[in-house]
């Protein structure tokens, strides 16, 4: 069967079950065809004053009664510094547990150690919003038994609520926790800020284990994860490498190219009709995307604009803007640097939210649906405004869906910033290799050579032209760029589906085929 973008989607995949084809950004909601919350909560009643403390991570995992075919879930707030997931997988492997489904909110450079467990068939399914590095390469080569499922942050919450992902064991790393399992990332030697992705695992997993390297006297405040969901608590020497978890403050790029793109993007926002008091705003943490915040900050001061709230993906730069009064609040599902943890802990206007509240498409109050402006990055875009943030130039899995499609769908203005080519690779394609965010939800693509406005927004294009923005037809821009870079050779792909890209409503928006020239 074909989905709304013309991608052939198999009706059934061994090990994953039936698939539904993507039918449009709001199709599921408009038709009322949304997955209901059918998964019962787990009965966890116990007698009074029973200790939850375990001697070791191994002890805690044994108490969860692991079995072949189980699903292990975790959050990725420790990012590249995560030291918990690899320990847990090694313990499960030692116990001889096989056929594991790994359901992490994302996977980072800290998880290349999973490669041998995938190759040996110990891990047979992966649900994640991102897969990178060597792990992405070997999955792209077809070494994971069943196709990996790439979901968005909001989509993961829906996946768990609807039973698509059924966590048997949730391992929730925390930088501070107490004996009952109240846990937070807001303080402690390994502080990482918001713990937003962990909430859904705590609520739905059969066994919930809080793992900390900083057991504090009861009660642990703030209780980001709450005790009545937690079965066991264990202290370990270290939950990871603090310097890779969160350090210092995030700096604005000094790349002239990124700064130019960001300056143009801020001008686009200023003349979009949304640049006024009460504006809400989200920006990514990387390169040109974060640099937009720098210019927006200057523009807001210049025009005396006070925004309403920021969400995200929060950096110290966002915290500075909150403290300057440019926004009234930050809703924080994930914090990117050490300075943000302090703000989460101390500033009542800096509000930690769950991923459910952040982006779940099936609730009635996702923050992404209240968003005015979002600025997003891209690996590739195409002439229909579709965006790829998951596969690289060879077709290999090397990125993350994250909140890209969630925020793009909800925001009044979704702005994608990217250079027109990177190291000779043209960024504008006839069709992106993998669609993560459909063009229907993308309004503007900003490059250093011109701004492309989705033809569905003619008024916006007219307003930007009037303001002197260099608005160009995306097909013309593509031709210009191709003439400079040349056309890249065709990717070497096989017939095997190695990953499915799930749109936020659970339908399949694209499939990723194996790459044959990777080693």
């Amino acid at each position: 069967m074909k989905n709304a973008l013309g991608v052939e989607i198999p009706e059934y995949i061994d090990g994953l079950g039936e698939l539904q084809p993507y039918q449009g950004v709001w199709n599921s909601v408009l038709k009322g065809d949304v997955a209901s919350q059918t998964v019962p909560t787990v009965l966890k009643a116990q007698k009074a004053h029973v200790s939850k403390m375990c001697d070791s991570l191994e002890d805690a995992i044994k108490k969860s009664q692991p079995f072949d075919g189980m699903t292990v879930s975790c959050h990725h707030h420790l990012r590249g510094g995560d030291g918990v997931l690899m320990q847990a997988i090694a313990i499960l492997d030692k116990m001889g547990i096989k056929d594991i489904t790994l359901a992490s909110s994302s996977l980072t450079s800290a998880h290349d150690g999973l490669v041998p467990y995938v190759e040996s068939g110990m891990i047979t399914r992966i649900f994640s919003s991102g897969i990178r590095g060597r792990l992405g390469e070997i999955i792209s080569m077809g070494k994971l038994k069943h196709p990996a499922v790439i979901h968005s942050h909001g989509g993961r919450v829906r996946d768990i609520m609807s039973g698509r992902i059924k966590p048997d064991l949730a391992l929730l790393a925390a930088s501070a926790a107490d004996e009952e399992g109240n846990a937070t990332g807001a303080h402690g030697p390994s502080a990482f800020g918001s713990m937003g992705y962990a909430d859904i695992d705590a609520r739905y997993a059969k066994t919930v284990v809080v793992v900390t390297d900083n057991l504090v006297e009861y009660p642990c405040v703030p209780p980001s994860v709450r005790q009545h969901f937690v079965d066991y608590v264990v202290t370990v020497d270290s939950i990871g490498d603090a310097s890779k978890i969160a350090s210092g403050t995030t700096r604005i790029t000094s790349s002239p190219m990124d700064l130019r793109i960001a300056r143009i993007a801020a001008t686009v926002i200023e003349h979009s009709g949304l640049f006024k008091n009460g504006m809400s705003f989200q920006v990514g943490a990387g390169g040109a995307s974060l640099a937009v915040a720098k210019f927006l900050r200057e523009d807001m001061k210049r025009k005396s604009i006070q925004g309403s709230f920021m969400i995200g993906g929060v950096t110290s730069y966002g915290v500075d803007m909150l403290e300057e009064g440019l926004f009234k609040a930050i809703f924080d599902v994930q914090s990117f640097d050490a300075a943000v943890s302090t703000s989460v802990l101390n500033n009542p206007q800096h509000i930690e939210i769950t991923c459910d509240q952040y982006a779940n498409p099936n609730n009635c109050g996702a923050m992404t649906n209240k968003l005015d402006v979002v600025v997003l990055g891209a690996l590739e875009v195409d002439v229909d405004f579709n965006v790829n943030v998951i596969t690289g130039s060879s077709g290999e899995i090397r990125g993350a869906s994250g909140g890209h499609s969630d925020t793009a769908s909800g925001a009044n203005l979704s702005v994608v910033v990217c250079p027109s080519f990177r190291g000779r690779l043209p960024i504008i394609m006839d069709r992106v290799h993998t669609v993560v965010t459909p063009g229907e939800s993308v309004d503007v693509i900003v490059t250093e050579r011109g701004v492309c406005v989705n033809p569905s927004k003619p008024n916006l294009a007219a307003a930007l032209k009037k303001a002197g923005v260099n608005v160009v037809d995306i097909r013309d821009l593509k031709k210009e760029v191709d003439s400079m870079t040349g056309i890249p050779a065709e990717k070497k792909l096989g017939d095997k589906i190695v990953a499915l890209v799930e749109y936020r409503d659970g339908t399949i928006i694209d499939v990723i085929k194996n790459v044959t020239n990777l080693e």
Partner: protein
Amino acid sequence: MTPKFKAQAGTFESSDIMVLIEPVAEGSGRQVDISSTVMLQFEEDLKTCINQVLDVMEIENVHLIAKDKGALTPTIKARVETAVKRSLGIQEGTL
């Protein structure tokens, strides 16, 4: 013409190409070794582009090593031309 000296042009910066030339004996032909961050996408294009410059400059015996970081065609041609001129001792127009 045949290169007389070892020579180089370019840098290892992104979007540039480093071209190294080593003189070889008459009659040993062209050996062109290319490595590139965009090898999978532009290998043929790189080969063609480098050989075109060597053809124009009538260089038949040479060992050329190119380390590419995604340079555009005009950059590649300029770097090869400069490296060749330096290896021939014709420095006009080059630094």
